[in-house]
């Protein structure tokens, strides 16, 4: 009698296999960037509440991971939409095509500013991109030669900067925020140094290696993917600077302040107008083959691009998304509404 219990795993196994057969899906599945995640989930929730469709499931897998899942094929077992904090790469489009995902709709949703911030207990920093590069790169040119980064204090870079140790808390290499920071701030700074811009013209690979490698001698501290943690650490250590997304500065403006980069303060308006230089575009990609198979895709896209979501005063702006300029918004809305395909150039 007691051994009847042994039949339980068998029964469960049967249930498991039968679940595999259930193919149809009436719920949108979204994967991708952790930067877009807070915005995508806000739209998903609103969409679920205001329409008769089920609330989409949104996974935070990172931009690269999301595109990999997205490109793994067509069919209800693959995601319908992937969020990305960068534009899809040509190699990824090719990979998608290999697996039969040929029709992709790109939707640009707005900008995300990356800020360098510190505690309000200390004065606000004003940095140039070149100074950011010099402060954080592993190797910098000094007197026409590349040497290991000799700068220890901010005042070593420029006499106008405070005489405190260079200490920057930022995300690890797996993070998209870090990629964007390196590309926009550090590479941007490296290009301004004549010796490195010559290098770029002759040897792109070598230039990238120099511009993209962050120092490992303790001045740049990898503080994990959790931006809240960086904010807390900045409060505890007034000498440190932190690198994270604008929405965290927006939520904690009573405790921390964003450094001016190139003389421009990272405010909502400055990022939206493009004056603040360290910002990137955010996207999501839709699998057109799923439109009509999984219900609600077009309606979700319409909600995301609507004025009340992505507009200047939409609820996404409240969440920290920097909206596109009005003209570009209506362009995106039209092309996304018509599901215009990504041209493969």
């Amino acid at each position, binding site marked *: 009698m007691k051994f009847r219990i042994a039949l339980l795993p068998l029964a469960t196994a049967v249930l498991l296999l039968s*679940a595999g057969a259930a193919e149809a899906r009436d719920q949108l599945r979204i994967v991708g960037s952790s930067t877009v995640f807070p915005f995508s989930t806000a739209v998903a*929730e609103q969409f679920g509440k205001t329409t008769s469709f089920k609330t989409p499931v949104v996974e935070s897998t990172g931009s690269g991971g999301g595109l990999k899942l997205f490109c793994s094929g067509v069919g209800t077992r693959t995601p319908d939409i992937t969020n990305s904090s960068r534009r899809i790469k040509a190699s990824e489009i090719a990979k998608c095509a290999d697996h039969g995902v040929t029709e992709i709709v790109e939707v640009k949703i707005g900008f995300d500013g990356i800020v360098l911030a510190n505690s309000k207990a200390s004065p606000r920093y004003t940095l140039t991109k070149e100074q950011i590069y010099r402060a954080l790169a592993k190797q910098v040119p000094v007197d026409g030669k590349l040497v290991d980064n000799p700068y220890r204090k901010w005042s070593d870079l420029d006499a106008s900067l405070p005489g405190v140790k260079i200490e920057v808390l930022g995300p690890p290499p797996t993070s998209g925020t870090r990629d964007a920071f390196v590309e926009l701030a550090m590479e941007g700074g490296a290009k301004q140094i004549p010796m490195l811009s010559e290098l770029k013209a002759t040897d792109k690979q070598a230039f990238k290696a120099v511009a993209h490698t962050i120092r490992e001698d303790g001045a740049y501290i990898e503080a994990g993917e959790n931006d*809240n943690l960086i904010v807390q650490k900045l409060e505890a250590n007034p000498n440190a600077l932190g690198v994270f997304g604008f929405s965290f500065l927006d939520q904690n403006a009573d405790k921390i302040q964003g450094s001016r980069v190139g003389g421009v303060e990272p405010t909502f308006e400055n990022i939206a107008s493009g004056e603040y230089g360290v910002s990137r575009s955010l996207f999501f990609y839709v699998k057109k083959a799923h439109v009509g198979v999984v219900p609600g895709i077009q309606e979700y896209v319409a909600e995301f691009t609507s004025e009340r979501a992505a507009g200047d005063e939409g609820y996404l702006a409240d969440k920290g998304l920097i909206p596109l300029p009005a003209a570009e918004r209506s362009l995106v809305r039209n092309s996304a509404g018509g599901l215009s395909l990504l041209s493969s150039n």
Partner: protein
Amino acid sequence: MTDRLLPTDESAARHLAKRHAAERRFRSYGASAVGAALVVLVALLGSILWRGLPAFTSHEVRLEIHFDADLLDPRGSGDLEVLGRGDYGRLVKLALRAKFDQVTGRRERRALSALVSSGAAFELRERVLAEPGLVGTTRLFFLPLSDDADLFFKGGVDVSTREADRRLSDAQISWLRVLEAEGRIESRISRRFFISGDSREPELAGIRGALVGSLWTLLITLLLSFPTGVAAAIYMEEFAPKNRLTDFIEVNINNLAAVPSIVFGLLGLAVLLNFFGMPRSAPLVGGTVLALMTLPTVIITSRSAIRAVPPSVREAALGIGASSLQVVSHHVLPLALPGILTGTIIGMARALGETAPLLMIGMVAFIVDVPSGPTSPATVLPVQIFLWADAPERAFLAKTSAAILVLLAFLVAMNLVAVLLRNRFERRW
């Protein structure tokens, strides 16, 4: 006489004093180790409680809501479909504007309606759908405040900072003070936290979805790992011959117990999702992966519990003519059960706290609906904690700690069951 047995010379007495001192020192090391552990535990629990308790209450505002028939159901059809499409957000805005009729201008009005949560409109909609007779009447309702306004009443907004650096403007704070002075603001136990799923608005976010997800996942884990593990343990201990093959299996089980959990997640992704085509984010798959992870623990503890049953019990049963099966099912298994259950609960407790293997199979996700079964998308408690800890809104800080408290309560409840079961079945020789 005892005097004579004691050493009388000086050196022996000194030696004795030294030994006693050593013992006292040893005891004090032990006591201070326990003390240090207690201090750390109290500090940890204290900080979580201190931060998390505010999340169990929320501030609500009492407003007269006029269910304007022209707005909700202009034709008076009473059709639920029509009522469902009504503009309930407007009802809330109108109620606020009626309260502060001196507020004009688009910006100010936006700031005013931002004080009440966007969830208020959905709650009114639910009410009307449940009771269509409300249309045309005016009623008093408690509506949730927005997270920033709630935080203000919980002391989370520093009024002395610059207006631009605050989430609430001076005007918003003065409106909140007026509402408070009129006795319209009340702090209530937050029901929403226990009855709703996840949300991007901190004041609406609830733990129910993750709790139910954890329950389903653990149920699957238990159903798979307990019978399989116990059966394997009984066979290995009582029936299996001792040879190279069984030794090899034993070594492998012990090794499996030490495999990092993410590896099981990768296995789940490759085999369950990609090969068998099971749904992503489902407790069924999560439970299976966690069962694989728990299985070695269950087998190892069950085997040692079975081994602890005295051989005399088996021999006596065999001696009066019981078959091997009867020996096991009538005597060994009931006697070993308390130990087996303890081991299983420990394994389950570990499974409850796992997030790494679930990442691979899509359970680290934003899911609003409370899961309705083992195949509907779900997340689990530790994942919910992780997601909230990562959210930019400051009110999620308290939610994170509150979710940790719920997870701890879940764990304590599980351990309590283990203790009760053990006390009930335990037999001493």
